[in-house]
């Protein structure tokens, strides 16, 4: 029982980390109706920026805390600059184009960000040290043999994810910008006709997605180290948003929790019977099963066509 609880809890924590990345997908989709393939590359670039800025700033200021704060601010500015460049060079020219065209453009952005990120910041492994505790805690040692394992860094990451979700949910529901974002997602032309500045909205949403990518990059980067493979973490977040619904911020969290637990429990309890290594494709199977019953995802907006 203790081991099952450990696996279950481990899955929940991992799911929240996936949700952090999934949020970026949701943000862009909500504001433009486009699935942003570049989210993984944005996580990589943001983490690379943070790792390198943090190294330089800590050395210059002689304090890790000050160095990290300065590096975070610099990285936020960098991701806003990336958003502006993407809007100016790519999105602005694709207003009112087919969504497929925009989708392909995000694929192109992925390759450019992957390549440029490594060219500017380097291809080595870099560290983000924000002081996250790494040693495990063992609870209920009197109840279960060996206790129940908890990782404090996972708990902190879960807190960060919850805070981000709450902030973004408020942004979308109760602010003018949030309403404008939703209007743009519904129809570019209609939004423009009522005076919503499409370009500015896209910059805002890509910048917010960039900041979310930065937070995800810091959390994942401090766990894994920062290098190219970080961009592949986004692939693990895909079933999360499929399941949770591409238009729902809380859906990313719930989807993350379900996928996280599904992955870990399947790998530990089903894996040994089929040779192991099933967690990645099992997550997709789980998402597809949900889609059979709810094609828009658990919390996605229902699409109704009037005939």
């Amino acid at each position, binding site marked *: 029982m203790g*081991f099952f609880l*450990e*696996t279950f809890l*481990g*899955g929940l*924590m*991992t799911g929240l980390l996936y949700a952090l990345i999934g949020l970026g997908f949701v943000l862009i989709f909500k504001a433009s109706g486009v699935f942003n393939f570049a989210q993984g590359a944005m996580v990589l670039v943001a983490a690379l920026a943070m790792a390198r800025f943090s190294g330089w700033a800590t050395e210059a200021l002689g304090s890790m805390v000050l160095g990290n704060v300065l590096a975070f601010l610099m990285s936020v500015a960098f991701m806003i600059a990336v958003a502006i460049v993407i809007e100016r060079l790519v999105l602005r020219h694709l207003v009112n184009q087919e969504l497929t065209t925009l989708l392909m453009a995000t694929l192109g952005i992925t390759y450019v960000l992957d*390549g440029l990120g*490594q060219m500017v910041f380097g*291809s*080595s*492994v*870099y*560290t983000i040290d924000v002081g996250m505790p*790494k*040693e*495990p805690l*063992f609870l209920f040692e009197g109840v279960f043999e*060996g206790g129940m*394992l908890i*990782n404090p*860094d996972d708990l902190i990451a879960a807190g960060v994810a919850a805070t981000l979700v709450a902030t973004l949910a408020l942004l979308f529901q109760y602010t003018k910008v949030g309403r404008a974002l939703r209007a743009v997602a519904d129809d570019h032309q209609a939004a423009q006709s009522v005076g919503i500045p499409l370009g500015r909205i896209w910059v805002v949403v890509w910048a917010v997605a960039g900041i979310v990518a930065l937070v995800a990059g810091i959390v*994942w980067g401090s*766990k*894994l*180290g920062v*290098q*190219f*493979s*970080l961009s*592949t*973490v986004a692939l*693990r977040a895909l079933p999360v948003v499929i399941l949770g619904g591409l238009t729902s911020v809380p859906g990313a969290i719930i989807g993350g929790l379900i996928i996280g637990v599904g*992955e*870990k429990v399947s*790998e*530990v309890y089903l*894996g040994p019977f089929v*040779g*192991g*290594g099933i*967690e*990645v494709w099992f997550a997709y199977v789980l998402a597809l099963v949900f889609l059979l019953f709810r094609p828009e995802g658990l919390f996605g907006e229902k699409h109704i066509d009037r005939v």
Partner: protein
Amino acid sequence: MQNRIAQGIRGLAVAGTMAFALTAPSIAAAQAEQFIPLLVYRTGSFAPLGIPWANGKLDYLKMVNERDGGVNGVKLSYEECETAYNTDRGVECYERLKAKNGGGSLFDTQSTGITYAVMDKAPLDKVPVMTMGYGRSDSADGSVFPWSFPMLGTYWTASDIIVQDIAKKMGGADKLKGKKLALVYHDSPYGKEPIPALQALAQKYGFELMALPVVAPGVEQKATWLQIRKERPEYVILWAAGIMTPTAIREAQATGFPRDKMYGIWWAGSESDVKDIGAAAKGYNAIAIQGSADRGKAHDDILKHVYDKDQGSANSRDEVGTVAHTRGMMIQMLTVEAIRTAQEKYGKGKPVTPEQVRWGLENLDITQARLDELGFGNLMRPVKTSCADHMGSSWARIITWNGQKYETTSDWYEADMSVVNPLVKAGAEKYAKEKGLTPRDCSKE
């Protein structure tokens, strides 16, 4: 009209002569050099390992040109081709460079995937493929794989040596009986390669092997390490590469598994795998190809003849002497010695063809005296190849991360060939049967 035609012919003749006069020196120059293609991955998921490795290869070639003026006066020329560790790009590099500048001397693909993709082409193109410490383990049998050279050790010899060191730590091979060892492996042909050898060893020594695959690239391993926490194996053997290695060490920390009970394969035993983890990786062991964590005169020569002249490939001279950089140097040393051996048979002081380099690789005899002369005396043990043995040597040592750097913590081990050879023979026979090959009779060569 006739005059015009005659004029045209004269013009063409003049142009042809001029073109020949202009290109002849470059052809001569190209012919006077020995071309070595360099497949590298300086970008992508495995770049942290690929960069120092590529730099080590490049630095050794530069050093031979600077210090010795090439091989018996033949300068070494080279060209890098970026594969990003992708098989399709690797094959493209191979196709592009195989016939360049008189032919690529040999290909060190730096990838098991690329090796598998080109090893059937190489015999047709008559180009040798050298895979030091990687590739197909049964290709050590030169009677079936005349063009493949898994020099200095394969994943099967590495498996045996790791188990030898574990047995030594446990107080003898008999102590392995009834114990549990876990293999955490990259779920790919690379990661699966040691399984037959470890299964044979499990049968021989009576331990239980628990094989746990990790889906590439290995960024999420929580389920794997929770299983390790539950099953509590004595030791974990880590067949990882790239980000999978530091992630595994971090997960070991997160689940409380002792790092000194972990053994990585040599591709999971570079500084880039552990230096950012620092003290938390203290005690982590890895097998080194020969003595690649040690320092020798060859390093000093590179610093003196390359870095002191601002010709170094790495950004910092501190990279010289790191495990991955030294591996690159070793590969190129073997390449250069194969070229030298070929020259001794086919004519000193002139470039040799890839086919002749193959002969050189198959007839290498690098004695201890020669290793001392080359500056590899304490880094390597003698290497002697033959028609039947394309590996040449299986010596290795265990290295351990002390929190700041790797230290060599074992004496020299040689693989137990009574375990490895039957696997090589069976694998090679199966391959020959599948491909309809008739193995060479090495007793006649």
